């Protein structure tokens, strides 16, 4: 009995002692939403580089999970610490567009883009506009991602080029197309958004605003068509679910994130024979942003880190070469740093022309929510 007591009190003492352990000085904390490759990117590439340039600094990365759920967790952490009047625990966060907009609206972020020299290297609208919220100065795009339809060439002789062609194909091949609806993953959501762009006349207003709730009455036809379309599809559990079913040959086509698609292929979870097609009039894509919390403990170092991560060299080597992502800063600065072969690998299935014409932004936040609500009310119910 005494032996057990000793063991237990030892354990209690050990844990209590370590409870008061202070954080290591000069640690830069990076919290990133998104897939594991985002965490790996920091751990395997950015962190060693930064630590080599700044001796005495350690970089630690924390992943919060894929999709908007991951960004939501970062937002909740920042909101909680701000609400309690405490300092944030995060120096650099990598979040999706929707959450970045919300964080700016709630004054959780610091404006830093003007302070770093790479800030001038990005001129795309996505650096200033996050789904309708003005985020100028608060964000730097890390990379741009795009959704497209992945298909199995063995089962799909001629892939559809537009949403209309897709509808016809799915009618003739029931059960061969899969997507995750609007729950569980953004690939399905982006498919639905693309559907709205294709089958309503409001595409421009959806993307740019202004917000006018009354136009949702125009959507009845498109939604009814979607409900009809859903009779012939298979529903997957999420982004990974769609890729999963493509992997096992249970579906022949489905919307996927281009970067996730390439990652799964290189990780051996997807057959190398599968291909991508970006269908017209367009499918959405979005950047992920580097942001700095307003009360970050090491703000200067955070800015230095982001500045390093958005230099053309790092974008070329890290973003494009290693991960097959479209760069965050303007393409021309990055292209000059790479050999043509690597650059063109980005565009094997989806050409720069495709991207320019059919790569669309998501609708502005208020329409985003409206469309999701309309889907829930009219398509699933």
């Amino acid at each position: 009995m005494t032996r057990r007591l000793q063991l237990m009190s030892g354990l209690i003492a050990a844990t209590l002692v370590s409870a008061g352990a202070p954080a290591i000085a000069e640690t830069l904390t990076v919290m990133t939403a998104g897939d594991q490759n985002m965490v790996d990117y920091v751990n395997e590439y950015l962190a060693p580089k930064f630590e080599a340039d700044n001796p005495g600094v350690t970089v630690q990365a924390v992943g919060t999970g894929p999709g908007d759920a991951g960004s939501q967790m970062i937002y909740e952490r920042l909101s909680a610490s701000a609400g309690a009047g405490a300092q944030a625990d995060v120096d650099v966060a990598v979040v999706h567009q929707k959450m970045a907009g919300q964080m700016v609206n709630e004054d959780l972020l610091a404006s830093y883009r003007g302070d770093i020299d790479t800030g001038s290297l990005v001129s795309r609208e996505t650096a200033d506009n996050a789904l309708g919220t003005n985020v100028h100065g608060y964000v730097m795009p890390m990379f741009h991602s795009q959704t497209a339809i992945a298909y199995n060439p063995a089962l799909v002789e001629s892939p559809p080029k537009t949403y209309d062609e897709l509808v016809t194909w799915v009618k003739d091949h029931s059960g061969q197309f899969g997507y995750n609806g609007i729950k569980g993953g953004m690939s399905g959501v982006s498919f639905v958004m693309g559907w709205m762009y294709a089958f309503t006349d409001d595409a421009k207003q959806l993307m740019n605003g202004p917000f006018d709730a009354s136009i949702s009455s125009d959507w009845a036809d498109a939604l009814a068509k979607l409900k009809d379309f859903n009779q012939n599809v298979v529903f997957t559990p999420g982004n990974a679910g769609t890729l999963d079913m493509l992997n096992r040959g249970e579906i022949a086509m489905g919307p996927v994130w281009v970067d996730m698609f390439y990652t799964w292929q290189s990780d051996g979870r997807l057959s190398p024979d599968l291909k991508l097609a970006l269908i017209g009039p367009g499918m959405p894509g979005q950047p992920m942003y580097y942001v700095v919390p307003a009360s970050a403990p090491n703000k200067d170092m955070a800015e230095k880190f982001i500045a390093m991560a958005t230099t053309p060299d790092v974008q070329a080597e890290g973003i494009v070469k290693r991960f097959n992502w479209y760069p965050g800063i303007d393409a021309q600065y990055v292209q000059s740093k790479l050999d043509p072969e690597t650059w063109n690998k980005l565009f094997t299935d989806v050409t720069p022309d495709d991207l320019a014409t059919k790569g669309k932004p998501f609708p502005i936040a208020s329409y985003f929510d409206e469309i999701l609500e309309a889907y829930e009310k009219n398509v699933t119910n």
Partner: protein
Amino acid sequence: MRLAEAWRWLPRAIVLALLFFVIFGPIANMLLWTVAEKWYFPHKLPLEYGFAYWQRVFAPRGGAIESLVNSAMIACGTVVLSLAMAVPAGYALARLRLPMRGLLMLVFLMPQAFPNLPVYINIARLFYGFGLNGTYVGVILVHTTHGLMYAVWIASAAFAALDRELEEAARNIGAGPVRTFLTISLPLAAPGILASAIFVFLESLDEFTGTFFVGAPVVKTLPLLLYTATAGGNYQIASITALILLVPSIAFMFVVERFIRADVLARVGR
């Protein structure tokens, strides 16, 4: 004689084989993924085997070993704290006639009865206010609020099922209430209480969300390290994580079993 024995074994063997398939089928799936480097349709088994993902998990920067040790230590701390509070509470709820006993029992169910997702933002704020964010004590406290459900309910059931005659006999020969508790009640209820320890340990070991909101980035546990990969469909890493977590879980189970004399594990109910 031998034939009759063999005959009797047939239904047993079939049921056991079926059970084996049902239990180990998914686990075999997991084991295959831990060593699969390439596996896609139409191949029924992995194309390429290898330990590349083990290297990824145990990359020096990742700190997988440190995280594993942290997870195990936090789990042990949670077990100790939960039991320390649950044993007296369970005894009181089972034996001493408390008013609103039902309500109190329901209170202990609450942390798991209300799905935690919307609550964590408020819990995080509270912990920031107390200065418990980023500390091991904070994380242990969060795990304990969940562990108390198992510990209190099972301890309460264990104490309630004790034979009161034994306790009364001890009191009749002059033992005080504390002595009776320590020498009669507690040892008899111990197997059930220690069974609950296993569940508290397992729950703490796998906990992600609470640990993230209260502990990250200072406190590094294995679920924190590998959650993103697991949730994102990286089967290789998910399976390796599960395999690694098996080690402290089974070790803890062995340790607990040694404290119990009976050769079948829990004696909840006596």
